[in-house]
């Protein structure tokens, strides 16, 4: 088996006495599309925060394409090829949509003060390239017409898709999507599902997905990990997960005997 693109080994963090994530292990193969589910407060978002350096894991290791990233700063992790969206959308509200996506390109660019101020050919080319790429990405998501709008004025569903665009603009190897379908209507969800599937083919990106909508998860994920109270209680294919009694218990609660 080839080396996984994202290799998470027993990471853990506690906030005070609360063990938000314990011994979380996951190997995402190149081109994989895996899911992460669990009841509210299970620690899913915290896993993403650990991966992207928002929090530093208190134990365990994280490797992106063979490079260890735990303990490094968030922007370095992004440069390594890990990008994400946020559960509670974090767009740059006052900037235009296209600027939001162009910002995603920033990490792949080269920047020099003199070039920026004197408009050196390299700088001009880079700016143009960023704009083109951003527009291409936006068209892919049917958002090109909204490029000039301030991001905060977009609808909820559109904002979620702009966030995905922005994350893709960083040319990630692994994309972490935190509840991308939240707040979307069934029609939008259907489209999103198709889109997420196509991302991996078009961009060669591997995806880890948090989602509460079981329909979406079961449909598109190859394998699923289930968290409850910070612990991994199950791991397997969608069919295995659906049959797993522990998972059912975690979601429905123990029947009062």
């Amino acid at each position: 088996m080839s080396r996984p693109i994202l290799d998470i080994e027993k990471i853990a963090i506690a906030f005070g006495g609360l063990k938000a994530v314990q011994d979380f292990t996951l190997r995402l193969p190149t081109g994989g599309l895996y899911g992460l589910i669990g009841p509210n407060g299970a620690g899913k978002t915290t896993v993403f925060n650990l991966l992207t350096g928002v929090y530093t894991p208190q134990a365990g290791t994280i490797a992106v394409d063979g490079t260890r990233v735990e303990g490094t700063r968030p922007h370095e992790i992004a440069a390594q090829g890990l990008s994400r969206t946020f559960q509670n959308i974090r767009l740059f509200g006052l900037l235009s949509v296209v600027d939001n996506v162009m910002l995603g390109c920033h990490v792949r660019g080269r920047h020099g003060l003199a070039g920026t101020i004197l408009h050196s050919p390299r700088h001009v080319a880079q700016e143009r390239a960023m704009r083109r790429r951003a527009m291409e990405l936006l068209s892919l998501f049917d958002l090109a017409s909204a490029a000039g709008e301030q991001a905060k004025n977009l609808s909820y569903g559109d904002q979620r898709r702009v966030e995905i665009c922005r994350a893709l603009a960083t040319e990630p190897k692994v994309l972490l999507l935190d509840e991308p379908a939240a707040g979307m209507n069934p029609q939008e969800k259907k489209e999103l599902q198709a889109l997420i599937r196509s991302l991996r083919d078009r961009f060669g990106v591997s995806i880890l997905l948090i989602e509460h909508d079981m329909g979406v998860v079961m449909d598109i994920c190859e394998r699923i990990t289930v968290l409850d109270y910070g612990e991994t209680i199950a791991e397997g294919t969608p069919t295995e997960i659906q049959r797993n009694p522990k998972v059912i218990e975690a979601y429905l609660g123990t029947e009062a005997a």
Partner: protein
Amino acid sequence: MSPVSKLDEQAALVMPDRGRAALNALVTGLACIAAALLVHFVVGSMVGPFVTRIMLDAGVMIILAVSLNIVNGFTGQFSIGHAGFMAVGAYVAAGITYYSSLALFGSYQAQTGLISVGSLIFAASALVGGLAAAGAGWVVGLPSLRLRGDYLAIVTLGFGEIVRVLLQQSNPQLFSWDETRAASLKELVPPPLGGAQGFQSIPTYTSLFWVALFVAITLVFCFRLKRSSEGRAMLSIREDEIAAQAMGVNITNLKVRAFMFASFFAGVGGALYAHQLGTALRPTDAGFARSFEILIAVVLGGLGSISGAALAAVLLTVASALMIELGPWRMVLYALALILIMIFRPGGLFGVKEAWEVFGGLWRRKAVAR
């Protein structure tokens, strides 16, 4: 079969040719100089000394406000000690021109003529002053930028106050080159910059030409910064630090850079201020009162809006010059107006947008389509 290519591949496709880029840079530079000459000779000959004075003040204020906007408007940090950096630039530059004039020309009188040895020394001193201020910005910024919001504000305020007190401790000014050569080490360390009495008789090199030129340079710098990848990254810090980091923006590095850019131009602005006719530099120039004035211009213009900051700087300078006749009521009304503006127009004149974006929505759409 990926339809979206990587950034590098794209950039290679759209690389403009070198000659045109060089020409472009040259034209921009010449345009700045031409504009400065125009202001100096044409506008300068049409107005009297009172208006000239206001124009000089307004120009300096534009530089200060537009530069502070890089920190407070672009990166959304909270610096309220801008006058401290201005004073560093002012004192360094004034020290250079004053003592070099004594040494070279035997007097602190400014040399006449638009371009003379003296005025070139002055221009160089303004740049050195700017660099000194940028250095100070680095010293303050590096450790303190990990502080959030209000705390950073407090540190910058403290910095301004420390500069003020240290300037008060500088040695008395020396008034001739002989005196300076004969001075003992004790009279030269700390440098003889006038102490609490203030630094007087600074050669008056600041003219409409120099002010307009530096205003033009500052504006070009800020506009190009704002519309570049680096500028967007700064704006993204203001909007959401966590998202910015997650997208690969090195926020500490950019904050320090923003701080240094802003301090540099504050230092240059300080140098222009110092060499105005009839200015004696005083340690209180570094204090919070002046910092607040600059801050007010930035917020009034709209945080992040360069044209807004510039316009507000002009408005405030003109208003305060006109309101002198109101005597003691002047500042009372000024304060009331400030409060009312904050309540009824909290986004300032233009919000984050530039003047033309506010007035001409059309233009904006065209720019995006490009």
